[in-house]
């Protein structure tokens, strides 16, 4: 147990790639928390997919001991957070567990969309904020300009921002001092009070079962205690209490203000709810903490095994992944075209990609991913209401009173020169401008946009029209009615359910045409010509014709090598496995996503 005044709890927040994890490395290294030989870059990004993509996906907690210049040794609990917007939920709940934030800003890039989003969250959580200007080793670093930008755009004092290079280690001692002198110790907290601990996160470990990360507010958490989760009601015996250094290290107890983990033979991550309050079963605390808003999936898509005999393997993989990721949802789905699979919900497109990659790689199942869609609210004439996760399930329009779609508030920061392209892109995606301000040569535009126009390829388009110089953040602001219809696609006169989409009526023709053209390129030519049509409720709104294949024969004869001919046939058949059969037409898997990408 550490005296409160010697504890500092803080999160490291920043826009993607501004150097949070690298800063965490230096803090861990300079304090000797990890032996030099065990050090590696972005040490905390332990998941394969994190290391491969060089990004943080899960927030990580580490406890370090720091002997400060005032002669005292402080316990620092840092939480390294992800920068990508899909995982902003990780940031917000991490912030609830600590009292301060290091706001890292890349001095070559300046303030970006997630920088802003993080600051707002930090202010919301009553944090002290220490701005840190990173990457000053790079020639392109412009410390003065970025400090000015922080003051102008964010409105916080940047005069004593710490200037560092997380890469070279320059300025790190000053960061450590700033943590101790400028961030507050935990507020209040009584050792003798009943146990009250905030459930910050939980993860599944195949050896230990569910590991729960807690921040103790009051009382003491110890091995052998019988604890109760106040909201879910579950009771458990605590097997082990410890801290991350960053390896799991057992401690006797965790007292007020401390952050650590517990294990208690909990089977599933789902049995724990982040934001819940942990107390002792007997003589527990009275009122639970306010809790967090749960994270809800906003993007849905179908995942189907390419090889339909792998359906059970897919189920197994999805269940295992869901064990460790409460923000990922799934339900079984059947598609006339694709067979059995799952309709899955994600926090965003990156989250979708990450889960899909993990299934393909860790479980060796090749997947067909259908186009992502959002959740529509469908109001029926009989007064009932339903949530539509899959356009294929759209009820007959004659029974529908109206449809509402989710809208977001999108904040985009962009250099002047690309502003026009960004405005056009937002306008094309049915956006309504809410705000536009300038800070130096950068503009900040705020748009109200339909989520459905964004989930798919908005981010890619934004990156491409701005050459990567724009940053983007969003939050859902609610549902709004609009003139939405289901557009079907017919290939060789047969509807292909997996290609159905919800579109705005005014854009239907344009989208239908674009989709038919795309499909015409994506579907290989067959022995016969194939009409490709887009239709709304039986009315064709766009059409293309894929002409018939004329020549497909191996000119050379391989003499008496009949075996080779058979191998070629097998190869041809294997190629076909990557296709899906619709009547007599074979559609390649990638078509199910590529067809929906919009180029304009």
């Amino acid at each position: 147990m550490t005296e409160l005044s010697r504890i500092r709890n803080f999160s490291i927040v920043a826009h993607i790639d501004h150097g949070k994890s690298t800063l965490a490395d230096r803090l861990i290294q300079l304090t000797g928390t990890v032996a030099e030989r065990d050090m590696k870059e972005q040490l905390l990004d332990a998941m394969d997919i994190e290391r491969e993509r060089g990004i943080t996906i899960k927030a990580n907690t580490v406890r370090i001991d720091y002997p400060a210049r005032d002669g005292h040794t402080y316990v620092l609990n840092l939480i390294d957070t992800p920068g990508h917007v899909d995982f902003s939920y990780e940031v917000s709940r991490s912030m609830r567990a600590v009292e301060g934030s290091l706001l890292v800003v890349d001095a070559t890039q300046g303030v970006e969309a997630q920088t802003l989003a993080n600051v707002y969250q930090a202010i919301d959580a009553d944090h002290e904020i220490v701005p840190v200007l990173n990457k000053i080793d790079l020639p392109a670093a412009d410390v003065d300009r970025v400090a000015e930008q922080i003051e102008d755009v964010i409105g916080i004092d940047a005069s004593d921002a710490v200037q560092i290079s997380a890469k070279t280690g320059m300025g790190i001692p000053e960061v450590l001092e700033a943590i101790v002198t400028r961030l507050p110790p935990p507020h209040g907290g009584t050792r003798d009070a009943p146990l009250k601990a905030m459930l910050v996160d939980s993860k599944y470990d195949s050896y230990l079962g569910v590991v729960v990360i807690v921040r103790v507010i009051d009382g003491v958490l110890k091995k052998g205690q019988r604890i109760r989760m106040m909201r879910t009601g579950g009771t458990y015996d605590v097997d082990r209490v410890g801290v991350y250094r960053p390896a799991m290290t057992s401690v006797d107890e965790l007292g007020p203000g401390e952050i650590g983990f517990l294990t208690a033979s909990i089977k599933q991550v789902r049995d724990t709810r982040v934001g819940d309050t942990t107390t002792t079963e007997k003589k527990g605390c009275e009122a639970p903490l306010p809790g967090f808003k749960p994270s809800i999936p906003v993007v849905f898509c179908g995942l189907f095994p390419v090889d339909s005999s792998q359906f059970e393997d897919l189920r197994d993989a999805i269940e295992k992944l869901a064990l460790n990721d409460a923000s990922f949802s799934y339900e079984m789905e059947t598609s006339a075209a694709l067979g059995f699979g799952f309709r899955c919900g994600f926090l965003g497109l990156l989250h979708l990609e990450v889960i899909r990659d993990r299934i393909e790689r860790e479980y060796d199942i090749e997947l067909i991913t259908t186009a992502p869609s959002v959740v529509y609210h469908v109001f029926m004439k009989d007064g009932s209401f339903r949530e539509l996760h899959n356009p294929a399930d759209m009820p007959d329009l004659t029974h529908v009173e109206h449809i509402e779609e989710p809208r977001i508030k999108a904040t985009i920061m962009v250099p002047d020169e690309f502003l026009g392209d960004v405005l056009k892109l937002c306008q094309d995606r049915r956006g309504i401008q809410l705000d536009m301000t300038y800070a130096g040569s950068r503009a900040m535009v705020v748009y109200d946009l339909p989520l459905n126009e964004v989930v798919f390829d908005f981010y890619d388009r934004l990156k491409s029209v701005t050459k990567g110089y724009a940053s983007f953040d969003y939050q859902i602001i609610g549902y709004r009615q609009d003139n939405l219809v289901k557009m079907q696609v017919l290939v060789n006169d047969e509807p292909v359910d997996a290609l159905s989409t919800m579109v705005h009526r005014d854009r239907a023709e344009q989208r239908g045409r674009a989709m038919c053209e795309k499909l015409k390129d994506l579907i290989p030519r067959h022995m016969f010509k194939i009409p490709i049509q887009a239709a709304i409720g039986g009315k064709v709104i766009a059409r293309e014709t894929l002409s018939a294949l004329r020549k497909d024969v191996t000119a050379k004869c391989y003499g008496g090598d009949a075996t080779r001919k058979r191998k070629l046939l097998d190869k041809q058949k294997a190629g076909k496995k990557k296709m899906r059969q619709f009547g007599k037409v074979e559609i390649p898997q990638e078509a199910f996503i590529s067809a929906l990408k919009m180029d304009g």
Partner: protein
Amino acid sequence: MPEDWETGGFGLYIHWPFCQAKCPYCDFNSHVSPQVDHARWQRAYLAELDRVGAETQGRVLSTVYFGGGTPSLMAPETVNAILERVRRLWPVSNSLEVTLEANPGSVEAGRFAGYHAAGVNRISMGIQALNNHDLQRLGRIHSVEEARAAFDIARGVFDRVSFDLIYARQNQSLADWQSELREALSMAVDHLSLYQLTIEEGTAFGDRYARGGLRGLPDDDLSADMYQVTQEVCAQAGFEGYEVSNYSRPGEESRHNLIYWRYGDYAGIGPGAHGRLTLGGQRHATESWRNPARWLDAVDAGNGESLRDPVSCADQAVECLLMGLRLVEGVDAERVKRLSGQNLSTESVAHLQDLGLLDPGFARIRTTPKGRMLLNSVIAELLGD
């Protein structure tokens, strides 16, 4: 036990694996070797003949084919010794066809008389192109002039002479090909093999193509047009296409190749040679060691084969279709049914007939000219599961 009428006879293939240079498009089992011990190779061929001869005793041999590689680099004595042994081991048909693949160099042409004396009665010459620029691009070491000279010598020596051209080359226009083809037909004797250039993985062309090189190859439409023009122009000159890439005057088809396509029995001898042999009532696939040195050693040890597998009836049905549909005459439906134990999917056959890709009727499975151009797709439909 299949009858000879059904399997199209019995033939012998002999593979010679050496060439003077490796062509960049070629994925045949061919090697460039500075020194070849002709005596040792001759002994090896003879040993293999003895081995196979003992197993197929009494069968009437109707064709022998020396393929390569470049068999016209073989010493005429070797060819002579082989053919002598062949006649000793098997009863041969009255009209035994003995073909030798020749490259059109001057050295080779000097040996033609020797081959003829040994019993070769048909030459298949790899001319490939009738202009020097394209010959160079194909990496050939001969010129048009040399080719013509060698061809004239061959015509003087042999009654039956065929030659090969590769078309659908880089930057070849339809008109270019048409006039080259006319020129070829004016030279042709009784048979022509006209292959559209195939880019094979693992060849120099394959690598270049994969890296985005080898530009100017015809697109699907142009190569389809070229193919159609070839059919028409050849037919006008009296050369009917009887197989996807082979054209002949009536009755002058390559009888040896017909055995393959009619899925008959053939023994394969030499590095990498394939065979299909009915032994004791069971059809077998055979393969010999591909690597020349490895093959020689294996033969010294008693057997050059690297593989001998029974072919299941179902696989025989598939192979029979794969080979047979290349022929205009198509395949006997009854035979396929007997092998596979079932009819082809009537739904698929009807679909292909509706599309005008298979001839109507069910006794023979036969592609239409349009269907032959789509043979791979047609077969996938017929054999798709």
